[in-house]
């Protein structure tokens, strides 16, 4: 790999530096390849914001994290705050996550926004199975965490938590959570993706 005006880095000199610690900014997370004994100055300063060397997987993960396509899956009250997060004031689009797909086959992330009733649970499972890997799940709101305000002993109608049906990656508490909370949750999921972790299948 030859830089435009720097020394060539020999492959056997490569080592993987420490991973970032998951801050909420999209830059500066992920491994960097540096030559033993050398530092990031090898990449010319003016190009450092634009040029990254990394494992292909990490680059793919970064791409996935920055363009999460959610499934339109509003179930109840949280759906309104999810839509508000996609609307003009909170604008999910600037995080790449504003493209809501109606078809599960085109979506990356399923945001469970609302209470899951027992009648709805098979539908949820079916949609989850329809989503192709890699896929993630965000449980938005108290109802999807553990049943929320509708949980009481012997509740007959709801599934107490989305993680009873699918593996959930991020939990966002609130009733309903503010759009900023949803955005924080999506960014947290982005961190998780960039770190390369997901449930298989």
């Amino acid at each position, binding site marked *: 790999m030859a830089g435009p005006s720097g020394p060539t880095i020999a492959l056997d000199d490569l080592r993987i530096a420490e991973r970032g610690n998951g801050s909420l900014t999209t830059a500066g997370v992920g491994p960097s390849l540096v030559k033993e004994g050398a530092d990031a100055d090898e990449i010319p300063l003016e190009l450092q914001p634009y040029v990254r060397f990394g494992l292909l997987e990490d680059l793919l993960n970064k791409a996935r994290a920055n363009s999460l396509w959610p499934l339109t899956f509003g179930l109840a009250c949280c759906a309104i705050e999810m839509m508000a997060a996609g609307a003009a004031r909170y604008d999910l689009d600037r995080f790449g996550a504003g493209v809501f797909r109606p078809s599960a086959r085109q979506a990356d992330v399923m945001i469970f926004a609302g209470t899951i009733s*027992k*009648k709805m649970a098979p539908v949820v499972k079916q949609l989850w199975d329809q989503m192709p890997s890699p896929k993630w799940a965000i449980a938005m709101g108290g109802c999807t965490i*553990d049943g929320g305000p509708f*949980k*009481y*002993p*012997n*509740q*007959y*109608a709801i599934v107490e938590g989305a993680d009873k049906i699918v593996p959930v990656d991020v939990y966002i508490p609130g009733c309903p959570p503010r759009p900023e909370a949803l955005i924080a949750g999506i960014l947290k999921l982005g961190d998780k993706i960039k770190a390369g972790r997901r449930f298989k299948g």
Partner: protein
Amino acid sequence: MSGTAPGLDGLLLTSAAEDHGKSGFHHRHTCAPESLLAIARAFDAAGYFLEMMTAEDRRADLDKMRLVYTWNRFGPVDRHLLQCDLEVGASAPSVVAATAAADWMEREVYDMYGVTFDGHPDLKRILLPDDSDFHALLKDFGRMEDAEGASGNGHGEDA
């Protein structure tokens, strides 16, 4: 759209005017199940609409299932409360033939209380899953006290 108050003579068991300011009803009636369809037809012919229909599980104190209907009109408002007590396990006549609103309302009463309605075109569950084996609002079903490890007011910690 206002009509004249319907002629319900001979169809009711009891009937009385009520203070709408206190209870929200202008009239309160009771009737026998056999008269339900005729009463519904009378209200419908007079331009009223079936505002609400539900049931109450009165097996504990009256040994009956109580059907509750409210009829009203769009203006001037004239709300009639109609209560009809059924023997436990008996079915009631459907009033769908008199008013289309009863279609879904009777299905909900069947779903929640198990009361069947003779003459309903398609009496099946409406809110609970189709394969449910319980009727949700019956008093002996789904009580908090009956849950395993339940205590108090529904805010218990998970075991």
